[in-house]
């Protein structure tokens, strides 16, 4: 079977398990409860996910991972998106953990990956700076040689789960001024000397921080000056999983919207009978379907060992657009009730805005698509 868009049996089983798990253990009420929470995320849920083996799935087996593919974990991200599960899988595993797995020395990997997989440690990425850019030009924070190591000074924004993190992976500049050359990554202890973090209240109630480094000691992760390629790959791969989360959330938003449109009666009939309302619902369905197909294609390219960067940007450009468009259409369907904080739709709308920006918004990825497209070719080419 050559053209196939279905998961294999194992992947389907993982998705089914994840759907049941998050529906039962992490309904949207949990996301609501963890908005702006001091605790940052539910430890018991995280522990259960560790017990299911989900935290180390993409890590190498020698570091307590399962050597799984992106398509293997795709369904977990879809299902996390569906219920807005407030857990740091994307941040701590697909980004922080994946960077350690890709660039770390044996000692660094041994120190961190098994503990991430077991649910005992978080490593998250500190990338964003005041310009709000996701390209290499956005990395300006200087890291200077200091004795055997490096010393970092500057500010990183939108850094997730800092209070719970054991290490931050900090993107810094060891050379050049704005290009890809000169970007290095450092492991920094967020509780160590020279680091202070200030939680920044945000739309989705996420644990996001402004982190100030003031001569903080950093341990090099990967090659000095030449970390951009790996960092960019990992961020693009994570962007595909973020897109999968948009797919799941979009399906839920569609269900909520069509459910409401069938029940809500005005002018003596369900509003879903009005074509204007039907159109809005089909907008959600269409945006979701586009996102699903493009994200699936990108995951397939990653797993097949083919160049995936352009396809990842296609997926995230669409996912970012969809995150905004689907929730907008859902609010148009719902009108007053959707505006109420007790109604679940707003949870999707406000988190959707974070997902839209996270790892590059539509504008960012469309530029990458434009840069990498000479012509449209068959999917396999």
């Amino acid at each position, binding site marked *: 079977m050559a053209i196939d868009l279905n998961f294999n049996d194992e992947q389907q089983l993982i998705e089914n398990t994840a759907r049941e798990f998050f529906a039962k253990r992490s309904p949207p009420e949990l996301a609501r409860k963890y908005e702006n929470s001091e605790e940052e995320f539910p430890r018991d849920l995280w522990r259960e996910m560790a017990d299911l083996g989900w935290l180390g799935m993409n890590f190498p087996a020698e570091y307590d991972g399962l050597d799984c593919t992106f398509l293997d974990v795709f369904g977990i991200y879809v299902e996390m998106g569906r219920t807005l599960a407030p857990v740091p899988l994307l941040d701590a595993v697909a980004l922080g953990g994946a960077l350690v797995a890709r660039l770390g020395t044996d000692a660094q990997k041994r120190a961190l990956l098994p503990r991430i997989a077991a649910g005992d440690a978080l490593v998250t990425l500190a990338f964003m700076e005041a310009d709000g850019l996701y390209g290499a030009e956005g990395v300006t924070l200087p890291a200077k040689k200091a004795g055997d190591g490096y010393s970092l000074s500057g500010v990183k924004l939108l850094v997730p789960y800092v209070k719970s993190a054991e290490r931050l992976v900090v993107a810094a500049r060891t050379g050049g001024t704005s290009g890809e050359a000169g970007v290095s990554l450092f492991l920094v202890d967020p509780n160590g000397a020279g680091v202070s973090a200030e939680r920044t209240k945000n739309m989705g109630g996420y644990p996001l921080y402004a982190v100030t480094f003031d001569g903080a000691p950093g341990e090099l992760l990967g090659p000095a000056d030449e970390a951009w390629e790996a960092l960019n790959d990992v961020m693009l791969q994570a962007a595909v999983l973020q897109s999968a989360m948009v797919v799941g959330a979009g399906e839920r938003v569609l269900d909520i919207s069509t459910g409401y449109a069938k029940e809500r009666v005005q002018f003596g009939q369900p509003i*879903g009978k009005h074509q204007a309302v039907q159109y809005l619902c089909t907008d959600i369905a269409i945006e979701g379907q586009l996102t699903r197909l493009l994200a699936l294609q990108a995951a397939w390219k990653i797993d097949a060992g083919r160049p995936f960067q352009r396809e990842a940007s296609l997926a995230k450009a669409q996912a970012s657009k969809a995150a905004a468009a689907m929730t907008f259409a859902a609010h148009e369907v719902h009108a007053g009730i959707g505006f109420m904080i007790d109604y679940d739709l707003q949870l999707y709308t406000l988190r959707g805005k974070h997902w839209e920006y996270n790892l590059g918004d539509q504008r960012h*990825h*469309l530029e990458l698509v434009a840069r990498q497209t000479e012509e449209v070719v068959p999917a396999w080419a």
Partner: protein
Amino acid sequence: MVDFCPDDTPELQAWRREVRGFLDENWPRGKVFDYDYDEDESRWAEATEFWRKVGQKGWVALTWSKDYYGLGRPPIEKWILQEEFCFHGAPCYPVIGLAVANAILRLGTPEQRLKHLKGIAEATTWWGEGYTEPGAGSDLASLTTRAHRDGDHWVINGQKTLGTAAHHCKWMVVLARTDPQSVKHNGISMFMVPLDTPGIQMLPLHNMADGQQNQTFFENVRVPADCLLGDEGQAWNQVWFGLGGEKLDSALPTPDLHEWRVIRMLNEVIRYCRETRRGGAPIADDPIVRHKLGELVVGVEALKLMSYEAYAVAAKGAGGRGAARTYLHQGYYKELWPHLAQTYMEIVGPLAQIQGGRWARLQGEAERYFRASFGNHAGGTSQLKRMVLATRGLGLPR
């Protein structure tokens, strides 16, 4: 297992090379012929010659049974052939013969198959479409053309309209009501009508994209009983739905050459933007143009993947959900196409309106494409597709 690669064996890769070689020999890469927007006799003749060569190879009927002029090849070979045709820029098979063949293969008697499939397989007989009526467009089931039985014949009376390129055709498939008491979808039958039968009169309608559609009048048109395709009164379920609800041709869906023209056109736009300088820099450097092109690439890539998914779903023999997906796919295409055309005009700018001569940009290709994009309603409007998606797919009330 998720896989987007159709040719995973040396045999299939060799097949792709064979198709590619044939195309390189028989159709200039990128030469445009759109049967629905072209009335130039010499271009029609070139396209006809090309399709006859395809027919001689047996490739029109590639997947049909060997009992009926086919080669009995597996559907994946048809997919690969269509992919190559699309990316080469080969012309679509004119009008709706392939859809008719699909219906005949599924529903026809052995005699009907032997009689009609040869002309379609060899591309010697073009078939036209006799569905739409002045009062029955999107609401096709309100059609009023009638047919009644008279001995060994059926007698057809009524009027069809907007029949694309019907004047090039020898035969027409005609939907007519055979049960005068019936309403809506019931009581409609499908007839295969030779267009030289007495009582048929055709008048031209010219569309805004240089194509000819036609009005066809039927006045006591007597056709033999064996012109009925499928069961009397069951056309809606058996035939029309078969044509509208599935992609054309037998076996499994493949890239639709008509639909995938958006890929060819987008590639043209990208090339134009890279090669053309404006205000001292390539148009492709303009950030607004890059954003718009990026959006179109995302849309066209996703549309392309919808075809891959259609194949995958059909290959698994999936039903219900697949149907809703089909309407989403068609509706999306019908909106993407004019969006691409509008954006193309925007990018090319004021000189895009010049239709030919030394001052025209791209020999007027953008404006031709723009005019053609108003033909996106053929086969049902995007509104109709969305309505069906909403009601049948999303379960909203009708």
